[in-house]
């Protein structure tokens, strides 16, 4: 008989043999060397003194130049000067909780501009000078301030990290890195946070939409992606009325394309799919064993979160809208089921009431 011990030993040995070797690749990606680079201070004390001294001086005056330039921009809006002394905007990072903040970063992932997209964003940025800092550090600082100012709580636990960049691959990479960084930063806090990460394919239409409605590009993009999920009641206007938390919940529940969730957005405010179905069944005087094809989706209508419930019974198609937070029945409809032999999406606009079996 083959012993437990041997089974385990063989399992471990097979898996160890199957594990790929990605050490070199990881070290390169993380920019790690076996002998860590000596710090500037150590270099100054060492041999190549002159060279590093110069570098230090240059970087100091460079920094002074940047703060002068920043002042200039505020005073006269001399964007050209800014461009000359700094890299071009390489990527734009949006952080949305309720405060929305947009960071422009250069190719070295340093912040070259920070802008509040709404009033709450101004509150967060008021006492912060993020220019020149590493974008990851900047994001953690912003999130930290959102936490202490009470914008992130157990019930409103979600934030959105959106990145747009000329280079999609690099953009995805930055998004992933920032989401991971914020996630581990929040691991130390008292709340269980959820992060929605997305890469934004910026275009003029999207920029106009964001600007007209005073929202970040990231929020505009999520609204576009939510519209593509085909919610029956969803409109752009109604999505615009939702809070960031509600938009993230919808992104999560409707599995919007390109949305990557870390953690789970809090949905305890809502009655849940099963209760929504029960509420509809209760109203119809049916129980779950009698019906077929039940479908429950989270949706939004007139700026409120709803469950869209559908099922079939006795040759009829039932449709309900249930308020997601109270379970109240907002609307109910019963129609002859003209879709009985059709596996496709259930189109609510059917008005030809023939229930024969043509295709």
């Amino acid at each position: 008989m083959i012993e437990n011990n041997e089974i385990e030993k063989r399992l471990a040995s097979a898996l160890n043999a199957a594990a790929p070797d990605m050490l070199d690749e990881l070290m390169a990606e993380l920019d790690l060397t076996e002998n860590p680079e000596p710090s500037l201070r150590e270099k100054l004390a060492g041999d190549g003194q002159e060279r590093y001294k110069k570098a230090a001086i240059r970087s100091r005056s460079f920094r002074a130049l940047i703060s002068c330039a920043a002042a200039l921009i505020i005073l006269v809006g001399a964007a050209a000067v800014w461009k000359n002394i700094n890299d071009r905007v390489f990527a734009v990072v949006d952080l949305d909780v309720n405060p929305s903040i947009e960071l422009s970063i250069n190719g070295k992932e340093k912040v070259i501009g920070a802008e509040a997209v709404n009033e709450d964003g101004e509150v967060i940025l008021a006492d912060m000078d993020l220019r020149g800092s590493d974008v990851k550090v900047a994001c953690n600082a912003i999130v930290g301030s959102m936490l202490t100012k009470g914008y992130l709580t157990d019930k409103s636990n979600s934030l959105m990290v959106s990145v747009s960049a000329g280079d999609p691959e690099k953009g995805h990479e930055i998004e992933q890195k920032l989401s991971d960084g914020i996630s581990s930063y929040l691991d130390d806090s008292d709340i269980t946070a959820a992060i929605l990460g997305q890469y934004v394919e910026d275009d003029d239409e999207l920029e106009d939409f964001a600007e007209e409605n005073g929202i970040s590009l990231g929020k505009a993009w999520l609204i576009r992606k939510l519209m593509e999920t085909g919610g029956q009641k969803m409109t752009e206007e109604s999505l615009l009325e939702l809070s960031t938390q509600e938009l993230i919940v919808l992104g999560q529940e409707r599995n919007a394309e390109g949305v990557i969730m870390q953690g789970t957005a809090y949905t305890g405010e809502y009655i849940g799919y099963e209760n929504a179905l029960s509420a509809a069944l209760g109203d119809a005087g049916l129980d779950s064993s009698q019906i077929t094809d039940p479908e429950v989706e989270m949706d939004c209508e007139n700026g409120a979160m709803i469950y869209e419930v559908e099922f079939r019974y006795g040759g009829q198609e039932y449709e309900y809208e249930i308020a997601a937070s109270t379970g109240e029945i907002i609307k109910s409809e019963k129609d002859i089921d003209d879709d009985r032999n059709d596996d496709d999406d259930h189109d609510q606009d059917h008005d030809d009431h023939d229930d024969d079996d043509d295709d």
Partner: protein
Amino acid sequence: MATLQLDENLIIRMASNDGAAFRELYQQTSGVVYGFAMSILRNKHDAEDVMHDAFIRIHASAVTYKPSGNPMAWILTIVRNLCLNRIRAGKVCEELPEYDELAGTSNDSDTMLDRMVLETAMNVLDAEERQIVILHAMTGFKHREIAEILDLPTGTILSKYNRALKKIRKEMESKGVDR
């Protein structure tokens, strides 16, 4: 079975970008990280992706690591979360993995038998059983420690562990491996 002991200082050293510490941590944990990801995802390609992301995450999170006396559990929690995120995001391949590829090219009888045990475990065990047996096999953790990582009661771990090994043994015996 020897318990996989990991020096907490490695993580602390990693926080200051110490490449040697990263190498050492990788060498001690890469097999377990991969094996645990395989046990959850049951797919070679996804497990490789998670392994890659896990080491990036471990490196990034080293700064916030709070010494707890069980760094391996910390690492395995990172791996588990990455796997679960992946499943939740619907990114996991549903196809059955190619077990032939699993154990490399060597064809000696010992390796073949290793591969056969792995293949059997992957085929006859359910997800929780796979995780329990593989964690036990690769880390030597106590059932209580595995219970904490998997967020399951210790009793469940014990009974599932025993049932899982019985299943593997039975299947192996039916394939004529009986010794």
